[in-house]
């Protein structure tokens, strides 16, 4: 009986450790996916000159997971006649941010980007995208460092905490 309990504790704490480690990896991945999205958006705006709703739908085809959902949602909101691009963007972002590993400051960059989306001519729009990309790059760097620093630590800490608890309790 004791041993079954011990196994449960070990599983639980290890799971926590791995969960945090995954959060760190996912944040990097998601920031990268956003970078890719913004780069594609830039191409769609500069070369194909598609309106946002069509551009987002096209980019969504190349994406997956939550980001794809976000893009499709945004495109739908615009197609159904939103009040303004900014509000549509905020609304979709609000929806998107549940269940993602991005931090508040990453989301703030995206919110700021949404403020001016679709409000400018091509070149200003491109500048805004480049600016957002640069911010995201900085965050990506930080996320990557955190990942390298804390990834193994979180995992081992999870397992070891479990072992500690078991030793203490037995």
């Amino acid at each position, binding site marked *: 009986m004791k041993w079954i309990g011990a196994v449960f504790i070990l599983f639980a704490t290890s799971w926590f450790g791995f969960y945090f480690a995954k959060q760190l990896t996912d944040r990097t991945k998601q920031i990268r996916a956003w970078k890719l999205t913004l780069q594609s958006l830039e191409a769609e*705006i500069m070369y194909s*000159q*598609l*309106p*946002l*709703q069509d*551009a987002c739908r096209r980019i969504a085809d190349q994406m997956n997971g939550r980001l794809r959902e976000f893009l499709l949602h945004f495109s739908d909101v*615009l197609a159904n*006649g*939103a*009040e*303004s*691009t900014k509000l*549509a963007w905020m609304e979709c972002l609000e929806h998107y941010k549940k269940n993602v590993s991005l931090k508040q400051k990453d989301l703030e960059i995206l919110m700021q980007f949404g403020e001016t989306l*679709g*409000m*400018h*001519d*091509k070149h200003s*729009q491109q500048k805004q995208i480049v600016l957002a990309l640069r911010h995201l790059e900085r965050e990506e760097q930080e996320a990557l460092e955190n990942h390298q620093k804390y990834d193994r630590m979180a995992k081992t800490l999870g397992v070891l905490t479990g072992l500690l608890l078991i030793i203490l309790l037995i």
Partner: protein
Amino acid sequence: MKEVLHTFSKELCGCLERFFINLEQIEEIRIRIDRPVEVIRGGQSSFIPYIVSEEEGQQILSKLSQYSIYTIEEELKKGYITIKGGHRVGLAGRVVTEGGHVKMIRDVASYNFRIAREKIGISEKYSSYLYDGTWKNTMIIGAPQAGKTTLLRDFARLMSMGNQNLNIYPLKVGIVDERSEIAGCVKGVPQYTFGERIDVLDACPKAEGMMMLVRSMSPSVILVDEIGKKEDVEAVMEAIFAGVQLIVTVHGYSLEEVKRRPSLQPLFSQGSFQRFIEMSNAPLPGTVVNIKDFKGDSLLFKRTVNNK
């Protein structure tokens, strides 16, 4: 009409619906920031007590561009946007220039929604003046709002569809639609009723477009709107000598007045046009005042001319 209403806020739509039971008769809706909305119906202007705020103006522009201002850069330079359904929205406001040329309209303060309306069949009663086995090169002359484009559009329909009662055979018709006004194309597909034999070069510069059509699409008739620039005139001459029939529209009040325009001189000195249709917006838009032949003699009032 619903495409136009779609770009307005719900409040403005509600207000319009309260004041006008029959929205379909509206010709123009003029929106000016911080001023009441003007509606023109049957030539009569009236104001509705709805003040449009700056923010709402922004929203209209953003909706007109499908929330992407960068897609309408070219339109902001020209000063008008064509939306789904072929309606045209004219813009005015603070203009940004670069090197002496208009770069864009930055702060749009006035919007003029011109409701496009197709009048199917209006060209039929004039077709006998223009058609005797082949279509004659024709110039439609009229002031703004006289209905030139509407008549031109119906000629395009009549030509591509043909009409058995009038003994008109369907022909290959090419339209060069620089302002997306004749065919009202959205993504290249015409929004109005045309026959099967129609090809549209949408948003294409007239002069180049006419030559492109002649070379690539082998049309029998080409229709062009608002000839005026020197290169347009050159292209018209080229097309006529290439054996294509042309129907064009020109801004002006009468044939005499148009003849005085220096840029159009070559068209008249060569006698390339055989028919001139003069239109007026009085008493109602779409009134054909006169049809003249290449000598300038009236065909509609033949008897009075002969008696002289």
